[in-house]
């Protein structure tokens, strides 16, 4: 009966406390389900204008408190923190704001002190069920002076859980070799001795040695001794040892391995596009070109070398490789012929014949192009040819002027190159008209070579 009454009293007190907290001004932070959420995104708390907004009351411009959910102040109709309905979701960075962190620190610094005399692990000895009422469970607070915020909730805690360790180990009942009491042996009582031998005696305490031996003789059961340490009754987590700072040692990157193999051309393509083929790889590819029998394989290998030379900016090497490719391997690619002709056109009059030759080869395979590419490249090829012929005619004219004994020879060449310039420029002009492209440049070249507009008229 007494126990029931005491239990009901405790329940009543607890409910009363809860009711008081609920009816409070809201400082405890309990949420009133009837009040609308102050945050427009539906969360119980959010950041508005850099400040935290929750169900706690806010103040208006005059310092008067008002509910946080009010959009407009009651007295002066000023916009409240919850005024804008277009607030986006507050960003969650995983870190507590400054005021929330201080609040948690205050809570952690003041743990609820447990009763030092009550051991939550061991059962109280000698408890009489009839007389004693069950004590309420003591509140055990974990001492954690530095609350650590786990940024990733899915990562395991770095600190392993340490079971609380009692300073005074409890004497075990099952101690195999208990010390026999002196008192029992001195009296020589058979009855006491038999009793002592039947029940294993606990280890006596070193300080109260006499008392412990007397007690062990009369009471075989273990006895709770008053602890010396006032904190012994509390379960305390040992302070976590500060983790040593990780030692970072810079490991020098491994030197890149020299890959001298060139069997797989596909694996060399990325390096070739960057112009990063090393000397061993280039030598290997050159060796393969010499030893490979099929033209198709030579073509592929040569292209890798060409692209590498172009990417690395080595124009001389590219010219050498392009000339070898076109003359010894394959000249059916109009793109390569065009590219080579354009490269030669940047040179002097000595390369003009090469420009005309490779422009002609490119025009032979122009059917591989289509659309706008076809139009622009054919126009460009005719232009290269006409300009190359003009350079030859110009050079022959100059040499004719300075000619001495070989004047007749140069007169003949001058006439020949002039005819070439006339024809190529007329071709260019005709294609420009047919493809509806610019005719000004080809017309001026044609008239210059022909000497009159009549030859160049449509």
């Amino acid at each position, binding site marked *: 009966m007494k126990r029931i009454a005491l239990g009901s009293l405790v329940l009543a007190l607890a409910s009363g406390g809860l009711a008081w907290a609920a009816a409070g001004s809201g400082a405890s932070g309990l949420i009133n389900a009837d009040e609308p959420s102050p945050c427009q995104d539906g969360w119980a708390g959010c950041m508005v204008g850099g400040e935290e907004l929750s169900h706690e009351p806010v103040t208006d411009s005059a310092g008067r408190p008002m509910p946080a959910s009010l959009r407009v102040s009651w007295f002066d109709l000023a916009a409240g923190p919850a005024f804008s309905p277009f607030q986006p979701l507050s960003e969650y960075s995983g870190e507590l704001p400054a005021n929330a962190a201080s609040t948690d620190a205050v809570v952690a610094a003041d743990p609820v002190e447990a009763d030092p005399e009550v051991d939550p692990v061991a059962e109280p000895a000698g408890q009489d069920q009839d007389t004693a009422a069950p004590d309420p469970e003591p509140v055990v607070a974990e001492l954690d002076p530095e609350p650590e915020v786990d940024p990733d909730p899915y990562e395991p805690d770095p600190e392993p859980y340490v079971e609380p360790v009692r300073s005074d180990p409890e004497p075990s009942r099952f101690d195999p070799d208990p010390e026999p009491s002196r008192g029992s042996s001195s009296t020589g009582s058979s009855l006491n001795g038999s009793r002592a031998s039947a029940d294993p005696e606990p280890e006596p305490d070193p300080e109260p040695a006499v008392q412990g031996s007397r007690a062990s003789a009369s009471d075989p059961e273990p006895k709770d001794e008053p602890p010396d340490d006032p904190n012994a009754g509390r379960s305390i987590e040992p302070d976590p040892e500060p983790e040593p700072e990780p030692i970072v040692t810079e490991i020098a990157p491994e030197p890149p391995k020299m890959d001298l193999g060139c069997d797989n051309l596909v694996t060399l*393509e990325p390096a070739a596009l960057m112009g990063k083929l090393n000397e061993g790889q280039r030598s290997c590819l050159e060796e393969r070109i010499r030893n490979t029998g099929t033209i198709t394989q030579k073509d*592929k290998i040569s292209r890798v070398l060409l692209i590498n030379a172009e990417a690395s900016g080595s124009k001389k090497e590219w010219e050498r490789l392009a000339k070898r490719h076109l003359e010894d391997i394959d000249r059916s690619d109009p793109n390569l012929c065009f590219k080579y002709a354009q490269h030669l056109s940047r040179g002097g009059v000595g390369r003009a014949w090469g420009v005309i030759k490779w422009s002609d080869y490119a025009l032979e395979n122009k059917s591989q192009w289509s659309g706008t590419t076809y139009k622009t490249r054919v126009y460009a090829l005719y232009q290269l040819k006409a300009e190359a012929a003009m350079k030859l005619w110009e050079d022959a004219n100059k040499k004719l002027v300075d000619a001495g004994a070989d004047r007749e020879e140069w007169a003949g060449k001058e006439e020949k190159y002039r005819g070439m310039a006339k024809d190529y420029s007329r071709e260019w002009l005709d294609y420009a008209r047919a493809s509806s492209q610019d005719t000004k440049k080809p017309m001026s070249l044609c008239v210059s070579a022909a000497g009159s*507009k009549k030859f160049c008229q449509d």
Partner: protein
Amino acid sequence: MKRIFSWMMATAMAALFAVSPLALAGSKSGEGTRVRIQVLDNEGAPVQTAVIRHPEEADRHRVNSVDGTWEDEVLYLPDGSPLLFLPGEVLVFEISAPGYETTVISYQVRRRGNDVKVTLAELAYDSGDIDEPMMSFGRDVPRDEGGEAGPAN
């Protein structure tokens, strides 16, 4: 008899004197007026390789390689007829040179002081504006096995 012979001699002499001025007038240094054309470039230097031609003429006349000039009083057309440079006449000339734009001038001949200077503009070779094509690796292209447009079908 003497009167007839002297009359015949006077007539012949008169005819001779009448024809000779006309003959002198028909020669190069005679009827036509000398016209002198000098061909220069933008910097004022003579264009050594320039040629001058009349639109109806087949031949081209090269300028002097030292000073870039050409001068004459008459031109001969393809049918052999002379074209005299007479005062008051408008002459058309086509002046060209390799590497320069051809220029056509028309000039009205004056009695004297027919010196013409012509400046030719250089031709601009702008093949540097041409886009270079990209090269590709020689990878094998899979064969298109459509079979719909084959000759057997």
